[in-house]
């Protein structure tokens, strides 16, 4: 079942003198449960594509459908709600809320979704245990290592039970050991919860783990390899 359809998407940035074609007619689909990496050199359009998939940016042309919903048809506030329910984000620099504990960070989206306290507590602890941080639930981000923070970010992204998770260079700031741990956790969650993971990366360690690798260059897909 397709969770994501990208149809002939273009993104053109108009700077003062030149037009930059960051994404140039990309069409790809992602099925439920995929563990895919979008790779390519810097400036190839990976992050732009990811932003558009996540509804953070609009394509200049083309359509992006998430679970058959065309993102361009949604109003700004509906799009935010849609993101909350369907898309999880993992950022390169974790971006946890510094004043909240790991538990509160994970709980945060469920709070926005107005879920019951019981459900929130159960799901939060389930996710924190899944990322190996059940015992650090009450720690604030500043007390966690980079790898631990990124694991909390993954747990947060999963909290709303999204259709897929977009992870933009999730391992860029992590050492080898933390990267390995994080990737193992994400693989396990992918297998167990059937959640689609889409990474943008140029980290070979991530690429090796991915079951599908989409290579982009100059805003175009130059290869799409399923392993």
């Amino acid at each position, binding site marked *: 079942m397709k969770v994501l359809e990208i149809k002939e998407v273009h993104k053109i940035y108009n700077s003062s003198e030149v037009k930059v074609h960051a994404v140039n007619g990309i069409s790809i689909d992602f099925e439920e449960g995929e563990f895919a990496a979008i790779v390519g050199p810097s400036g190839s359009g990976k992050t732009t594509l990811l*932003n558009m998939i996540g509804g953070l940016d609009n394509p200049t042309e083309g359509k992006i459908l998430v679970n058959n919903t065309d993102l361009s048809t949604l109003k700004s506030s509906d799009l*935010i*709600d849609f993101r909350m329910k369907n898309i999880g984000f993992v950022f390169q620099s974790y971006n946890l809320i510094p*004043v909240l504990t790991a538990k509160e960070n994970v709980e945060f989206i469920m709070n926005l979704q107005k879920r019951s306290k019981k459900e929130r507590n159960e799901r939060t602890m389930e996710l924190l245990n899944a990322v190996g941080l059940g015992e650090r639930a009450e720690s604030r981000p500043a007390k966690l290592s980079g790898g631990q923070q990124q694991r909390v970010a993954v747990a947060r992204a999963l909290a709303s039970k999204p259709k897929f998770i977009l992870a933009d260079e999730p391992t860029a700031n992590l050492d080898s050991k933390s990267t390995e741990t994080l990737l193992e956790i994400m693989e396990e969650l992918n297998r167990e919860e059937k959640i689609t993971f889409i990474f943008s990366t140029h980290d070979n360690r991530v690429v090796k783990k991915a079951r599908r690798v989409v290579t982009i260059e100059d805003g175009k897909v130059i290869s799409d390899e399923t392993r």
Partner: protein
Amino acid sequence: MNNIKLAWKNLWRNRRRTLITAASVFFAVFFALFFRSLQLGSYDHMYKNAIESYSGYLQIQQEDWWNDKTIDNSFRYTDSLNERILDDKNVTGTIPRFESFALASSGPNTKGVMVLGIDPEKEQRLSKVKDKKVKFLLTAKAVEKICEDENLPQKTRDMADKVEGNAYSTVDRFLSDLSLDPGRRDEFLPILESYAGFQNGAIQKGEPGAWIGSGLSDYMELDIGDTLVLISQGYHGTTAAGKYEVKGLIKQPTPELDNKVVYLPVDIARQLFNADGMLTSIALDLKNTDDKAIRETSIRLSKVIPGSTRMIDWREMNEIMIQQMEADNKSGMIMIGILYLVIAFGVFGTVLMMTAERKREFGVLVAIGMQKTKLASIISLEMLYIGLLGILGGMLVGAIGITIGVSNPIVFKGEMALIFEEYGMEPKLVFAGVGTYFLWQSFIVGLMVLISIVHPVRKILGLEVVNALRA
């Protein structure tokens, strides 16, 4: 976690910034309240001084007297007129006065003076002249004795030199000027009294004798028992001349009056000016002195007083002072406005910085699903908390400070006091109690904070998530 809790937690992630912003609001409120209290308190005090030391709240005068103060514009005072006035429900007493001007002379000194014919007993109801009689006078001889007395504290002996020539009608001011610790009052007051204590005589109806302002006595070099000669023009052009024994010195809080006033018993003053049975004014002792009561009393009495007289209230009698205070009030408000402006820019600067610093965080929150309106409300709450912390803190500390200030006015002593007196002011800063101005100042600062919220709210509502995430 609800918005309120999250906003509160957010406040303390940059503790220093929060405290600096709250402190700027706190100081804005505190100083605005403090200075406003001082300003309003000083006005009240000056009004009270002017009213209680001279004019009273309401007077009956001959209709032309106020604009042309010649004794030809006096009116006949009768017992029946007095009774009609006293019949009014708001009048508790009448204070008859005969006021004119004369040239005073003593030895080689002369000075234009204000002659105030009073009934000393009745005057106690209003200007309380007897209470203003000089109790201590730091003559050169008294100062010498104080300086030589090794039993007295060194500070007191040092101060005595600086305040030589000063007269005091209150013990507190006397001791304060001599820097004497109030705790040692019982120990040293009798000694100081023996050196600088001053005995006054009485003036009473039918007996020639004068009380004069301490400033005037200093200028004229007059002491108790000396003779003061007064020369002037009497009623309907007659010659007025008389000599009077100085029976006492009066310390008027208003230096202008202190330097020129001569009190005579009212009947003696009438004799001097050949105006038997006449008065220039009757000041009224009122039960209720609020503006409405004064207005109503004036209207009622207008109907019972002779046609050649009229009612005049304290506002009309102190018109210039009121105008000066209104002008001063405006300049005070401008100063407070400038203070607000400085603080407003400080608060706004912090808000700008905070908004720029947290742009990425805003982007993340919107990206993961927080509605912009909800985010804006959290940030608004943060600013409101900071505002409330500052405003409530400022109000609380302001209220405590002002309450202390109300019961402990700032009294200047020594040279500082003399500087005040040179400008015709009593050397005293009085605070106005906590009143409606409290709410106004706090409201204005609160409004400033609310206006500063507009910026982050606009930024959040117009936030482009992709740009914010790159910040």
